[in-house]
Structures are given as structure tokens and as C-alpha cells.
């Protein structure tokens, strides 16, 4: 997932590097808004989503502010994880890492990191996560469908019986929802 987060935070430098004189011309385009109207996954190509869309001046201001804030949160969050690990967090065992991430002190940073991990895992692969559509394939989601779309039969039909499975967390989520 670092591909997604690196691509996102990396655009801060792109936005800051853009001088006042360029008005977007020839400046590198931040990897924030993938192009359209479709990718090459269901067309003969090219992948139009791989050409990112230049930001208008108002959007540039908003994203500079947002990314600078996130970068600061990542810097202090990683420092916090190292502190809780008593050294280098990445050298702790996976079980130990999970324990640290679940500590109340890490709650704020975990929320940011988890949210961005979800975004990266299930967003269009042009953003740097979901490599080879691994995130979509894991959950049986086809992702973007244009310019193919779906047939009338695919829209209307019943896909047949398919059990949700017996994972206890699924049952617990349903039980929780029913209690609302």
C-alpha cells in the first residue's frame, strides 16, 4: 500500500514546485484526479485514466493544505509507532506490530492510515494501489466497466445462491446491525 500513499503524498512536492508563472502549463500534473472517461481495461486503449487531470488554482490550494497536513500526520505517526516499538517499528514481529497499532495512543494515526489503505486497496489501479486489480479481485468486484458497461440480462438477472460464509465477524456485524 505504500505505492498509493507515496503517490498521493508525493504530489505535495509537485504542487509546491509549481511556480506562480506557469498557470499549469508544462508543470508536472499531480497524481490526484485520474483522467477519463475510461481505462484500457474494457477498451482497446489507451488507458485514459493514466493521464492525470491538471488541478484548477482553487483545487491546488486545497490540496496543498490537505497534503501538508497529512504529511505532518504521517511524520509524527511513524515517529509515534517507533516510540511505542521502543526502536524501529518495522523490525517488530507482525503480531507485535498489530498490538502497537491497536494501542489507544495510536488510534488517531491508525484511523488515517487505515482509511488511506482502504482507498488505495479498492481505488482504480492508476492511483498506485490495487496493483493488478488485486484488491478488486480479492472481493469479487469488477471495478470500472466503461465503455463496455453491462447488458440488460446482467443488470436484471439473479446470479444464483451464494452464501455469505460463516466467519464469526460477519455474524457479529449482522447481529450488531440488527441491534440498532
Amino acid at each position, binding site marked *: 500500500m505504500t505505492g498509493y500513499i507515496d503517490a498521493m503524498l508525493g504530489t505535495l512536492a509537485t504542487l509546491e514546485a509549481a511556480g506562480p508563472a506557469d*498557470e499549469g502549463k508544462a508543470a508536472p500534473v499531480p497524481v490526484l484526479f485520474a483522467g*477519463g*472517461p475510461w481505462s484500457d481495461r474494457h477498451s482497446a486503449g489507451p488507458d485514459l485514466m493514466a493521464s492525470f*487531470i491538471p488541478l484548477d488554482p482553487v483545487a491546488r490550494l486545497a490540496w496543498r493544505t490537505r497534503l501538508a497536513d497529512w504529511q505532518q500526520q504521517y511524520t509524527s505517526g511513524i515517529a509515534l509507532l517507533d516510540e511505542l516499538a521502543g526502536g524501529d517499528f518495522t523490525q517488530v514481529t507482525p503480531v507485535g506490530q*498489530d498490538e502497537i497499532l491497536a494501542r489507544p495512543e495510536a488510534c488517531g494515526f491508525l484511523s488515517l492510515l487505515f482509511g488511506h489503505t482502504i482507498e488505495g*486497496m479498492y481505488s482504480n489501479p492508476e492511483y498506485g494501489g490495487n496493483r493488478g486489480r488485486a484488491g478488486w479481485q480479492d472481493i469479487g468486484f469488477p471495478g470500472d466497466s466503461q465503455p463496455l458497461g453491462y447488458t440488460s440480462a446482467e443488470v436484471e438477472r439473479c446470479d444464483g445462491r451464494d452464501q455469505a*460464509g460463516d466467519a464469526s465477524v460477519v455474524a457479529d456485524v449482522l447481529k450488531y446491525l440488527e441491534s440498532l
Partner: protein
Amino acid sequence: MSGAAARKAVIIGSGAGGSFAAMELARAGWQVIVFEKGPNHFTNLAGEGPIGTLFSNDDLKMNARHFAGPDPITFPRTWRPVGAPAAAYTGSVDELPQVVGGGTVHWNAHVPRFWDIDFEQLSALGPVPGADLADWPFSYRDIAPYYDEVERVIGVQGDLSATPGIVMRHAPRGPYQMPPGPQQRASLVLAAGAAAVGMHPHPVPMAINSQPYNGQRACNNCGFCANYGCPVMARPSALVPLRLALRTGRATLVPETMVTGIQLAGSGAARRATGVSWVRMTSRGPVSGGESADVVVMAASAIETVRLALLSQFPDPSRKLGRRLMLHSFTNGIAIFPDERMHAYRGRSTTQGAEDAADPDFPGSRAHARANGLPYARGGVIEMGGSQDPIAEGLSYQALLGLIRPSRPFGAEFKQLMRSSVLRDRLAGCTLIGDELPYLDHTVTLDPTVKDVFGLPVAQVTWSLGQHEQVAQQFYIPVLKKMMTAAGAGTALAVPDTIYSGGKPTRGHVMGGMMMGASPASSVTDSHGRVHGLDNVYVADGSVFVTSGARNPTNTIMAVALRNMRHLAGAGTTAGSDAART
């Protein structure tokens, strides 16, 4: 503004109302300038053939990154609960897209017509304690020809023969331009449940091409529909009248430019607008300017139009400017099917719906209302079908795991939930869009401290769910659950949006604040949307609404804008009784 020389109109906003205003005035020979605060994500708007677009099947771009804006960092709003001393929230509050095309770039394009009783709610249904009910200055019969015309322009699919009797009685109409497209599985399953409990579901009218129309393509059921821009322009909506305006050669579209004030001159009955001031961001900072106008047409959507009226210090003889904000009362139905994947990611967002709950005489609802001290408790249209996308689904599980697995709210169990997809692929959603009555203490004002990127005070929305809406939700929550259970759902929940949001309004059906009416003593705009006390300022968006109609407002915004702009253009009206009444 008399004489044969072309009159010049400045139109503020390029969405549902502004686009029809531009079309009508440009066709009548006016010179038209449309200012749009946001960017233009389209190409070939004024040309022939298909319109091009940068919109795509991209959840991240649309739902997490504000591609259709407004970004809450640069254009926040604040929300204040009714009675609270100060704002409780700063950020996105009932935002609509801030782009060329406005709200119609992301709408689900469901276009039910308001009913006769919606336009005559006070005289037809009587007063409700605490609410500021009134009749509109025209009837369903008066506005029906404009609904017809709007539908011909943008193209609507539907099935007249399947339209239930109650809809035809309250909003009689003729055939649709196109037959209904394929019906989503999740919609059909819920519709079967609705029919089983005595409701009358049917393929809903939608401004989405089921066949090629207007030179634009037919829908190919891509599934990224509501909350997305259409990648194939099968839902061109406001872009159609905008294109018709641009093709006259007399209309100019100016994107990325925010109107910051309407200049007023003169006094008393002669008080009028001379033009507008605007500001635009560049890489060197803001650049401002002005544009003169014979007439100014405000169509920035209800909350922003009120904000601009307040920034421009409009006269307010009725003391109703910015009051009676109506945002609808949304109740969210969640039907989970543990034995079947409902694949709501295919097809249009909502294909079936029912209007039974908009009937004030829905069985049992009057008795429930009376027991709670009200004459009626009205729901509204129920939209059936649709689900959430994987990012929103993941965020749902993130929140749920924090509650049920606090010691390890991530990891393998998160993946199990994503694979089971109880809150996406097994979910068939439905929404009750409840009538929200007008209340004088639901307001838009200027926030005392929060400013936008240009340093101007943002809109403060003061709103809490009203008494009628709470009573109606109490009645309809069990009705929705019964419907979903009859549809075969293993788990059926019906939860008001405000439970999730902590009381904050949601979704972006924005109406009221510049209420229409015959008398300057009791309304903000006159019977044709002209601001009382200002000779040449008109309003052509949802802010002129008198009631909220218990259903999606956008096609009514279009029809009312068309009626009022035709009057302004001097082309007369097609409805005799309308002209006589006003």
C-alpha cells in the same frame, strides 16, 4: 431594459435552473453570460454530436477527492443545530457539485413530478403547528406544460402504462420520450417486497437515455451512476439546455469564476441591480472584476443564492430571506441478503420506486399523526435499489470493527468482511425522501467567523429535523422494514440519515430561502421569481420553492425556472389560468 436592443442577462450558476434560464433568454434574443464558480469538465459543449467528459468510473476521484467539488478546505459551510448558540460543524454541509452542470452532473436523474397537493399544501392539507405552510403562486395544472417541455429537452424514460393511479391522479401526464431501461436486480427484489405490503412500485421516470436521444448515447448500465458524472453522456441533463443556449451564439459560459456580489443602485421602487462583481483564482492569487447587466438571474442553488443575496444586502421586507430552508427528511433502508449477491454495481442507481408514502392518507398514517398532535405525517417517494462502493464499504467496516473488535479492529477479519460483502454486494438499499415542511427557524445566514478561499463569509445552515419529520419517520421506519423483510432480506434496517450524521443535514436536496409568493409582505420573490423590491433580479433555482414536495426536486427546479424565464423573456405563458392568477 426597454427597446429593441438585445438585453443582457448575467446568470449565476450553470446547473438545473441556470441552464434553462440561459436557454430561454438566449433563444429570446438576449445576450447571456453564465458565471460558474467551478471548473468545466466537458468538451464540445457548444458543438454537434456527443459531448466529451473527464468523468469516469472512479470512486476515489468523485467520493473521496472532491473532483466535482466544492472542496471543504476552500469552500466550507457551517452547520448549527436549531437553538444552538454557535455552529457545531465546519466542512461539507449539503453540498452540490460545483462544476459546469451543477447538481445534474451527479444526480440519479430520478424525475418524479411534484403532486397537485404539493403546490397547494396549505389549502389542500391544512396548517401544521410550528410550520410556515403556504400555497405556491401556481398550480400543478399551470406548471404541467413546463414539466412536459423540460422532459422533451432533456429526455426522460418511463412507463406510462405502469404508472400507478395515485400518481396519475395527483400529477397527470402524457407519454415519456423513451421506454424504461433494464431494471436493476436489487430494485426488482425490493419492488416485489413493496408490492407484497400493498404499495405500487413501478419503473421510475429518469432523465437517462434508454435510447440515443439529442445526439447523445444510450445508457450502457456501467453502474457508476448517482454521485458520478456520466462517462458516456447518457445523462446529459443541464448540458442540453446549456448547449442550446451556447449554440445561439449569444451565450457565453465563464467557468472558475465566483460572483461575489450583485451591485444595487437607486432606492425605493426604483432599486435595481446594475451588474455583478466576480473573483477568480489564478496561480498569482485572486483576480476580481465586474460585469454589467440589464437583468441578473440567480441560480447558484438555494444555499449559495441566499448567501449571495445576504452578501449583496438585498432588501428583506417580509423577513423571510434565508428562512424556510428545506432539505428533505431522508430515511435510509438497508436490506441485506446473506444468500445472494445483489450486484447493485450494475445498472442505474435506482430503477424502481413507489410514491405511496407521499400520500397523506397512507393507511394508518393519519392516526399516528393525530396521536402525536399533527394533522398528517407524510413520507415521500421511496427509491429502491443501489448500494455502496468498495471504499465506502471498507470505511463502514473500519467503523464497525472499532465498535465490535476494539482490541484488533483491522487485519484478517476486515478482509473477511470485504469478501463477504454484506454491506455492498449483498445489500439492496432504499431511500425514503420525506416531505420536509417549511420552518422559519431553518435558515441560511452568513457565518460570523468562517470564510471561504476568497475571504468571504460562508453560509451557515441552521437546521434540525423538525417535529413533523420525526413523527413521519417513526411511522415509516416500520413500513420500510416490513417492505424489506417481505422482499426476503435476512437483515432489514431503516435508519434516518441524521442518526449517522449526528443531526447534520445530508445529501443536497436544497430548497427554499427565497420563497415565491404574490405579496412582498409574506414572500421573498414574486409570482415569477423576481425579488420583491428589486426591479431586475430574478431567482431560477430551488430557493424559490414554497414546499419541498416529498420527492426529488431537480426537474421541478427546471420547470419553474423555465416558466419564470419565459415570463421574463416576454414570450407569455402557455397556461392561461397561470397568467390570470398572477
